[in-house]
């Protein structure tokens, strides 16, 4: 009896590694500390009413960003562990098994639980404000999306201390990810956690597509939208067409692993290549899901700080549409070397190279926007300016990889790793940090400190180049990806060492940014005007932080730079006197999303361990929540006129 219990526990909890015990201890400590602080300051009710049950897109956005920052931290620690292990030949900081787990969780967390939710956070905050709406189309569903992502992220991170982490790479290729070759619970965590948050992502795609199509302010034609909103419209379409394929792929792998089906196995006619195709049919569009939104951010930021209207607006839109279309017909470039016929490789080679055309067009449009602009070097602008050359390097090396014959040389080498970090970091991460600094005042009513922001920028950007420029050469020298160590004497040592220095430099840059966030929360400069950057789009026309209802009056739009025009009219004395307020229809808070996601978490955890006694009640709980929601009828309230007046007066908006 005792034996079987200890045996169970030693498999349930990951044991035998001091780092893991450290993680156990810190997780326990942090949890206890959080619970204690909340109880001591009697903040439970506040937490529940203001945050856990909120359906306000701005608060949901903030929660997305907080969670994503934490995930960046976790993914970053994974990265530093890998770089430590590889700093010199023959180190034994991580063993092979452990290294496999770390690159798997690093990749999965960075893409699915850090980059994407960060973008969802920014779009939650900015899109309704940019299009002059009071919320998203489905505020309740929006909360469901967030909490599903959160449940998925928690489930995935739990694998580190309970049961063991997945180790088949973020692409989780069959047959290695299958049950015969990978019998533990690690891969179960991968398929279930990613599935749960993926359902949330799909809902977000639908939500924002409808929001943007149906809820724009009067006069805002599609081709008058701010570029960020355009990018989110296109991204939402990609999400709707790409994510269901991944949902199916993950479900099939789950069924293979849990119930012994033969979709991706080698035995009984299964097809491992089917997984590769399904994964990348989602996976390539996915990289555009995290890239197009930052294109939108850069467009808005560059126009704002060049104090000029965006160059080639319509071309910018059409190139994004072209990219989104092409992104669905390039997936095979991820496995040129895996036995396709030459014509097939040729097709995907060309379709991939074609993407360079619309992307190049965009790069030139940004440059032309800068041309003769009155450029202001704020922190967001620095991130945007650094993006252009750094990302272009990633783009050019992408075209090199797209040449199928040459790819036989580059494939799965560090050249590839350098390429996708050039796009994911210099594109997505720079864009996310850019948007974070840019919209921060709108979220919280004060600015992040410029000086510390610029320090963080320079340290991070320079370190990024120290880490990833040498990596291209390392790849050409023959070092392949996913190697946990290498012998001395190949000449790889010095470059690896330099890269590790760069990686830690990026860690320091991130730490400065974190410090800036804390410092500015206390000392940050208040944004009293609501328009700290002399912005051009509608989000800057309202107070900072944005009131619950966003717009006391829904604005009427006549030009692309809607707020810029309003300001000009005001200067010319042509502004119309404001109409009287009317009560505003707002959705009610709801506890169902967070409760439902808790059930989802329980179900996921049960399936991970083949504990159907736990999984089935979880599933029933989810269904019960859905039914309960269907019977809720009074799900909205009106904000009365005097409350609007009070709020607007407090924000200094009424004279």
């Amino acid at each position, binding site marked *: 009896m005792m034996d079987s219990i200890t045996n169970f526990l030693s498999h349930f909890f990951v044991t035998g590694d001091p780092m893991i015990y450290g993680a156990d201890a810190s997780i326990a400590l942090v949890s206890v500390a959080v619970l204690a602080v909340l109880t001591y300051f009697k903040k439970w009710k506040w937490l529940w009413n203001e945050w856990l049950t909120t359906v306000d897109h701005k608060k949901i956005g903030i929660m997305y960003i907080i969670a994503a920052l934490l995930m960046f931290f976790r993914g970053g620690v994974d990265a530093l562990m890998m770089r430590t292990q590889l700093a010199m030949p023959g180190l034994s900081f991580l063993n092979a098994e452990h290294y496999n787990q770390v690159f798997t969780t690093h990749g999965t967390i960075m893409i699915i639980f850090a980059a994407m939710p960060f973008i969802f956070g920014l779009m939650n905050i900015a899109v309704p404000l940019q299009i*002059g*709406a*009071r919320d998203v*189309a*489905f505020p309740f569903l929006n909360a469901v999306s967030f909490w599903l992502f959160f449940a998925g992220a928690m489930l995935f991170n739990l694998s580190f201390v309970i049961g063991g982490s997945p180790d088949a790479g973020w692409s989780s290729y069959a047959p290695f990810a299958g049950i015969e070759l990978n019998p533990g619970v690690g891969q179960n965590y991968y398929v279930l956690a990613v599935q749960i948050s993926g359902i949330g992502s*799909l809902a977000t*795609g*639908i*939500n924002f*597509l*409808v929001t943007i*199509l*149906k*809820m*724009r*302010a*009067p006069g805002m034609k599609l081709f008058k939208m701010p570029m960020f909103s355009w990018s989110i419209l296109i991204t939402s379409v990609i999400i*709707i*067409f*790409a*994510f*269901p*394929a991944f*949902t*199916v*792929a993950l*479900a*099939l792998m789950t*069924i*293979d692993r849990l*119930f*012994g*089906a*033969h*979709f991706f*196995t080698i*035995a*009984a*006619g*299964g*097809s491992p290549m*089917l997984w590769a195709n*399904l994964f990348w*049919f989602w996976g390539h569009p996915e990289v555009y899901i995290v890239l197009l939104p930052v294109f939108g951010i850069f467009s808005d930021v560059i126009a704002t700080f060049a104090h000029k209207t965006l160059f080639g607006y319509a071309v910018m839109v059409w190139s994004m549409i072209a990219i989104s279309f092409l992104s669905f017909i390039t997936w095979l470039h991820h496995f040129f070397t895996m036995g396709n016929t030459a014509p097939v490789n040729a097709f995907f080679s060309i379709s991939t190279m074609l993407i360079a055309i619309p992307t190049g067009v965009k790069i030139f449009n940004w440059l032309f926007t800068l041309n003769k602009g009155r450029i202001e070097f704020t922190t967001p602008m620095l991130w945007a300016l650094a993006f252009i050359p750094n990302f272009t390097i990633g783009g050019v090396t992408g075209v090199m990889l797209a040449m199928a014959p040459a790819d036989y040389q580059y494939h799965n080498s560090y050249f590839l790793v350098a390429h996708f970090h050039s796009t994911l970091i210099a594109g997505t991460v720079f864009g996310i940090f850019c948007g974070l600094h840019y919209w921060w005042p709108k979220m919280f009513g004060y600015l992040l400190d410029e000086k510390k922001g610029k320090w963080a920028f320079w340290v991070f950007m320079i370190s990024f180049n120290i880490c990833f420029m040498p990596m291209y050469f390392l790849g050409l020298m023959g070092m392949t990806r996913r190697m946990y160590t290498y012998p001395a004497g190949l000449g790889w040592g010095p470059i690896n060492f330099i890269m590790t220095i760069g990686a830690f430099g990026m860690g320091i840059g991130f730490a400065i940014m974190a410090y800036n966030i804390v410092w500015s929360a206390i000392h940050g400069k208040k944004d009293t005007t609501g328009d700290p950057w002399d912005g051009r789009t509608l989000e800057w026309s309202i107070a900072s932080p944005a009131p619950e209802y966003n717009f006391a009056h*829904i604005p009427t739009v006549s030009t692309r730079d809607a707020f810029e025009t309003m300001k000009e009219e005001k200067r010319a004395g042509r502004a119309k006197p404001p109409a009287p307020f*009317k*009560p*505003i*229809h707002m959705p009610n808070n709801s506890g169902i999303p967070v409760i439902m996601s808790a059930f989802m978490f329980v179900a996921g955890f049960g399936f991970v361990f083949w504990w159907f006694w736990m999984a089935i009640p979880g599933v029933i709980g989810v*269904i019960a929540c859905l*039914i309960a929601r*269907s*019977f809720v*009828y009074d799900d909205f309230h*009106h904000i009365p006129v005097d409350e609007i007046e009070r709020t607007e007066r407090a924000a200094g908006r009424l004279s």
Partner: protein
Amino acid sequence: MAESTLSLDAKNRKNLPLEYSTEEGDLRIVGFWMFLAAELVLFGTLFGTYLVLKSHTGGGPTAQDLFKIGPVMAETLVLLVSSFTCGLSTLELRRHNKKGLITWLAVTIILGLVFVGLEANEFYTYVTHEGATLQTSAFLSGFFILLGTHGCHVSLGIVWIAGILIQLARRGITPVTARKAFIVGLYWHFLDVVWIFIFTAVYLTGWVM
């Protein structure tokens, strides 16, 4: 009245059917169409998977060995008729006839239940008489999951319609219940369309090829 954020304001909505008469109803119906687009990709992926794996029988039974015309025709007929009765319910909705609406939705549920029962019986036969299970071969994995996903959708639809029936009985036809009844109708017809593809891609080609 609260301010509308939509381009179509309350005045212009007067002439629309009840389910479109509020901005909320309008948004949700459009949103549901987007959801159906996603469902289309979902089923598309399952069809693709099935067609890829169809010939991978791994020494187990093939499509010709398994599929019998009788039960499949019965399932098809029942589901097609249920789609028809579901259409009738939408017609009654447009006439604001609560009793008719409830009756036809109830008939739809019953036909749905019959369909699920027939399908369960078909699966049961395969498993017990032919020893053809999810674990037998890639072909059968693909078959059971494609049809099982459709069957789960139908079952979910049954629960969903049942919930709406209760709400209709309690509240009558309002803009909200009208929207719900309309949307569940869209869902039901969609499942019918998927079945037609299943009939063609799974059973017909299974018999012929």
